[in-house]
């Protein structure tokens, strides 16, 4: 352990802004805080609340698919404009649209980048805070207009947006195309724009912090995978997001100012004509997917990084192939910009383009395969500890294999003709984003909880939570593959209206029962989480005996993070090193020394 005394490194930048030298008020400490850890926790609590909202919306969808048109108990009167507990078709399309919107824009992206990015980046690189603390605070508070605007959209005339989270025009661009095409759709666009502004602020901050504020000795190739993933994700955001924001503005002007960027000549809906034409609905799809395909990686790369850290820690073994893992993340990000067209194979774009997108999409499976093999290589020859975070991490790998392999079907253009817009796609992205990313996030909460709150979560109840979640989520999402193979389409309020899908109702009912139970067992997690914040056993600095720099800071870290000046001597994955007689070798421990407790501040 470095014994270099704490030299008030953080005073060099933003010290005054942090409010040192006078007793900070409750507002400046917990509400408008400039501390990256508080901001990270603000993001975490906000996203957990929206996770519940998104889950409830999903239950509405599952209810309708299992028992169409029958009154939904309790929630029926709450979801949008349901009458008598029954879900009308326009509410169903609102449910699918808003479930995806909430989960993507209010849960997955902000929990990965906002919560874990904020909390972990300075701690893991040895900085006292983000490069721009005020900008960091604003990145959280710019989420609030989005929360409020999207929240309010449920209560406006016609209800919230109903054109799918893809917001394809003309359905989304014409006010009268559907009930939710009115004010609800405008609010959706405004809300997504605010999320974009928040993400952009975060991205600039993350990139600058990681480049500029690393502790002495923390070279780029000594960064943990979590930080590499956050860094590359921030780069993706910074380059892809402006395209969506610009496209969103164009759609707003189509809706409000009478332009026709995305409307063909003579565009009509519900027997009413648009004010202008001359545009092209496909243009929106190109612009939308140019962001939203990289967004898929924005929603998975940080999870991959965190899982790499947890797998190495609980295998008590170095991460297998560190540099190839870094290169594969960079490869995914680079290729991520040239594969958007695979969402549009049957959209009507030039089919010759389909061939090029097929090749690039196939190739993006390659870095994902490398990562999977390297995770397996990390477990090989280790001493695996089945802690709760490790179980979630192994589950991530196990489920990501399914999600990754099912993606190959979609990359194959002729096969995609059949499975596009069916439940096969729904299965694929839920395997990547729910059974994948959500598993990683839950594991990461259990893993970094001691650092966040200074206490441990209950491991036994964590295992119960893991077991039930793992079994039930597979029961919900795996059968979706075979539904899709049968041609079962997405977003149908009553699929049994079609003769060919009528016999699929029992399977849908089974999946829905499992979905209700899946949501129900999350109560175990919620109780464990809040109980542990107040009553969990106190955690030391390094309860997992991990190598990362964050584990050398106090739990929870005070303002400025470190009570000593961290100096880095090695990478973060030196577990089981023959150089020392314990199975971990912290990044700050000098090469010849034994770990000594860091000096008290």
């Amino acid at each position: 352990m470095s014994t270099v005394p704490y030299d008030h490194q953080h005073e060099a930048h933003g010290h005054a802004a942090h409010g040192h030298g006078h007793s900070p008020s409750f507002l400046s400490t917990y509400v408008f805080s400039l501390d990256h850890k508080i901001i990270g926790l603000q993001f975490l609590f906000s996203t957990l609340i929206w996770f519940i909202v998104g889950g409830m919306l999903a239950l509405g969808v599952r209810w309708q698919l299992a028992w169409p048109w029958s009154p939904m108990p309790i929630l029926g009167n709450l979801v949008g404009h349901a009458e008598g507990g029954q879900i009308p078709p326009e509410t169903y399309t609102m449910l699918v649209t808003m479930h995806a919107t909430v989960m993507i824009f209010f849960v997955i992206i902000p929990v990965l980048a906002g919560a874990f990015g904020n909390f972990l980046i300075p701690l893991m690189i040895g900085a006292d805070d983000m490069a721009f603390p005020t900008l960091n605070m604003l990145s959280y508070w710019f989420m609030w207009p989005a929360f409020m605007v999207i929240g309010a959209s449920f209560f406006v005339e016609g209800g919230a947006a109903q054109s799918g989270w893809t917001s394809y025009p003309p359905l989304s661009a014409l006010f009268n195309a559907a009930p939710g095409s009115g004010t609800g759709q405008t609010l959706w666009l405004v809300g997504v724009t605010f999320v974009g502004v928040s993400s952009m602020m975060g991205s600039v901050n993350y990139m600058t912090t990681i480049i500029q504020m690393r502790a002495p000795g923390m070279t780029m190739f000594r960064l943990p995978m979590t930080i590499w993933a956050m860094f590359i994700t921030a780069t993706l955001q910074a380059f892809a997001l402006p395209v969506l924001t610009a496209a969103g503005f164009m759609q707003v002007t189509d809706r409000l100012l009478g332009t026709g960027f995305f409307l063909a000549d003579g565009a009509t809906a519900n027997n009413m004509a648009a004010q202008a034409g001359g545009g092209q609905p496909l243009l929106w799809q190109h612009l939308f997917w140019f962001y939203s395909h990289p967004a898929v990686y924005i929603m998975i790369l940080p999870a991959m990084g965190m899982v790499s850290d947890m797998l190495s820690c609980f295998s008590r073994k170095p991460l297998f192939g560190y540099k190839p893992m870094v290169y594969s993340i960079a490869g995914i990000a680079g290729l991520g910009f040239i594969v958007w067209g695979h969402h549009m194979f049957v959209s009507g774009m030039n089919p010759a383009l389909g061939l090029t997108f097929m090749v690039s999409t196939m190739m993006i499976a390659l870095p994902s395969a490398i990562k999977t093999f390297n995770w397996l290589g990390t477990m090989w020859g280790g001493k695996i500890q089945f802690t709760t975070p490790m179980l979630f991490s192994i589950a991530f790998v196990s489920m990501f294999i399914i999600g990754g392999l099912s993606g190959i079907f979609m990359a194959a253009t002729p096969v995609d003709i059949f499975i596009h817009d069916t439940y096969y796609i729904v299965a694929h992205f839920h395997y990547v984003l729910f059974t994948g990313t959500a598993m990683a996030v839950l594991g990461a909460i259990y893993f970094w909880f001691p650092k966040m709150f200074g206490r441990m979560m209950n491991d036994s109840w964590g295992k119960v939570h893991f077991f039930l979640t793992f079994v039930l989520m597979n029961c919900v999402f795996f059968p979706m593959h075979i539904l899709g193979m049968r041609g079962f389409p997405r977003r149908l309020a009553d699929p049994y209206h079609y003769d060919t899908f009528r016999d699929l109702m029992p399977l849908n009912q089974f999946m829905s029962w499992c979905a209700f139970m899946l949501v129900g067992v999350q109560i175990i997690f919620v109780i464990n989480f809040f109980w542990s914040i107040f009553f969990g056993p106190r955690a030391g600095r390094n309860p997992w005996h991990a190598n990362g720099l964050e584990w050398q800071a106090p739990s929870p870290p005070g303002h400025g993070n470190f009570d000593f000046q961290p100096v880095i001597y090695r990478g973060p994955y030196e577990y089981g090193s023959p150089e020392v007689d314990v199975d971990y070798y912290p990044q700050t421990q000098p090469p010849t020394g034994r770990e000594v407790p860091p000096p008290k501040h």
Partner: protein
Amino acid sequence: MIKRFLRWMPNFWALLFLAVPVMGVATFVLADRYNIWLPRDVSEHGRTIDQLFYFILYLTGVVFIVTEVVLFYFAWKYEAKQNTKPVEFSHGSHSLEVVWTILPAVTLLFIAIYQMDAWAAAKMRPPEIPFTCEVTGRQFNWDFRYPGPDNVLYTPDDIVRTDGNLYLPYGEEVLLKITSADVLHSFFLPNLRLKQDVIPGMDQKMWFRATDGGSFDIVCAELCGWGHYKMKGRIHLLKPEEYQAKLEELRQEQNTMRVAETK
């Protein structure tokens, strides 16, 4: 109690992860048995698509089983209490990583190139024949316009149908013109393995040769508004002579209606 159970069964978690490939394969086997599988294919190119699907299914199936079993085996063998040997202090293997980079790369590239012709046949090489029918999607119905005896659309002998029933011959090449009157729709014929988004302002082509007769659902696969779920049509594949007779019947019916309107 949980801790006691896990002590009694130390490899419980490894076995749980083994359940993933077991249940995964079992689900697919049962799905086939209970007919939750690819719908009956009645088109020539559908056979090619199904073959490609099975090719990828078997390939990815093998990779899925192997990787999941390896995951289980490592979880089983290297559990901290079971593994008494020192940790393999390894940062990776360059040669191993080269192998598992090149092998998937070659396989994926092969899959991509192997399928190009099927894609081109389905989307890039329309037959040089007159349009058999024009399909128009509108909220929330499929309208059909047959060219009539002159084989030219938008002439007075056209037959226009708005009842959602599409009649086409099987055993013959069919060329459809598809468009939208309002928002995006997607013309999906599961039993013919065909899908094409329908876009306002764009005329697109779709072609196939059906191999068998029967009546099948036409599905709208693109969210098109509140009534999306009920935008159902039926495609009726008839013998060529029956198809001609049906067209004649539709024309007579239309003429009778016109006469009735004139009166």
